[in-house]
């Protein structure tokens, strides 16, 4: 294929990336609307991490992180897209600031793991394997990626939470424990859904990097 036609294709991808990133951010917004306050620590249970991990696992590291950054940008700019209808510069004062700032990193890491290990699980070793086995392989990779993504979100979120509440790290961790069951459930859902999406769109991650 000629160079020229490749450049056409790449320009097509720019618009495609833009659409995926914009829609991804919208998905995260919708998932933020679902918030259940638990205890008054100021950090509710939300579907945000589900969205963040999904974006990484489905869109890959770069687009996944960009979608989350877009979400943060409109949130800090004043649209009430964060948990419990908050937004704007006031967000910098939220006790959950650490979680929020870690979201793009979590999406990136999840996507990175899926990209690096998923290609192998999904195609090379699995080329001759039945679809189901291939999915199981990719499922394991998505599981690993989303566990790591969650750990990163905790790693930043918990210390900031503790600091904001004037507590020790141990106390912060204790508060965070309340999220663990739900967050594990979210990881399980991502593990179930993301591989199916890749089966439906086998070229989602294999596409050459665009916009660059």
């Amino acid at each position, binding site marked *: *294929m*000629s160079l*020229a*036609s490749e*450049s*056409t*294709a790449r*320009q*097509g991808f720019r618009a495609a990336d833009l*659409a995926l990133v914009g829609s991804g951010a919208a998905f995260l917004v919708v998932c933020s609307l679902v918030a259940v306050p638990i205890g008054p620590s100021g950090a509710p249970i939300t579907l945000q991490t589900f969205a963040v991990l999904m974006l990484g696992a489905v869109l890959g590291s770069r687009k996944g992180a960009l979608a989350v950054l877009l979400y943060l940008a409109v949130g800090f700019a004043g649209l009430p897209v964060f948990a419990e209808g908050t937004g704007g510069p006031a967000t910098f004062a939220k006790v959950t600031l650490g979680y929020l700032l870690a979201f793009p990193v979590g999406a990136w890491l999840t996507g990175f793991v899926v990209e690096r290990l998923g290609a192998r699980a999904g*195609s090379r070793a699995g*080329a*001759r394997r039945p679809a189901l086995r291939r999915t199981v392989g990719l499922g394991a990779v998505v599981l690993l990626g989303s566990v790591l993504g969650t750990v990163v979100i905790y790693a930043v979120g918990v210390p900031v939470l503790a600091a904001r509440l004037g507590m020790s790290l141990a106390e912060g961790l204790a508060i965070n424990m309340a999220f663990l069951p739900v967050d594990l459930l979210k990881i399980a859902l991502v593990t179930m859904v993301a591989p199916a999406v890749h089966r439906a769109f*086998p070229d989602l991650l294999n596409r050459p990097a665009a916009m660059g």
Partner: protein
Amino acid sequence: MIELHAAGVSVPGTSGDTGRVLLDPVSCTLAERRIAVIGANGSGKSTLARMVNGLRPATTGRVVTCGLDVARHGAAVRSRVGFVFTDPDAQLVMPTALEDVALSLRRTVQDRAERDDRARLVLARIGLAEHAGTPVHALSGGQKQLLALAGVLATGPEVLVCDEPTTLLDLRWRRVVDGLLEEVDAQLLLVTHDLDAARRADRVLLVDEGRVVADGDPVATVERYVDMMALR
């Protein structure tokens, strides 16, 4: 003006299978004002239509639209070729009707206020003036398709490709959209299952199983299609 020089599309085989030809190489020069493309489901009509503006790049041969090689000048071609999809929902990308039309005008009209005024005019022309500020999401299917068409026409395209633009609409909206397409001041390539609309074209291409199997006089080609389908 659309020129196809042995242009075809195939998808490479993934692990295991050998790939597929979606559209056999076809050569022709489409210069008529209204051209219809008909054919069975899955025959390759949409593939052909998308090849014209490079949305689906030809994998063999060459496509020249408005005098430009699509493979080399994709962006320039797309700025001269309007494309209307079957489902208007995905095609409307801005939150409100006015913004969506204004987005199309961005290239040609620099000044923001003037752009909004022009967009308002366009909306008025298609009878959606009062919906300027309406969220796109709240419009009906027919209104969305009109708006999609308006957004495309606002750019003054030389060629307009429509992939079954009225399939999802009811009688009334179908008439409205058909009427608008009738008047349009651009070369029209219309993919359609509506055989009456096809008969009104100047030239009809019949696609079957990835091949252009007939090309020419509307009435005769449509008849051939009907006969062909009756035999299956």
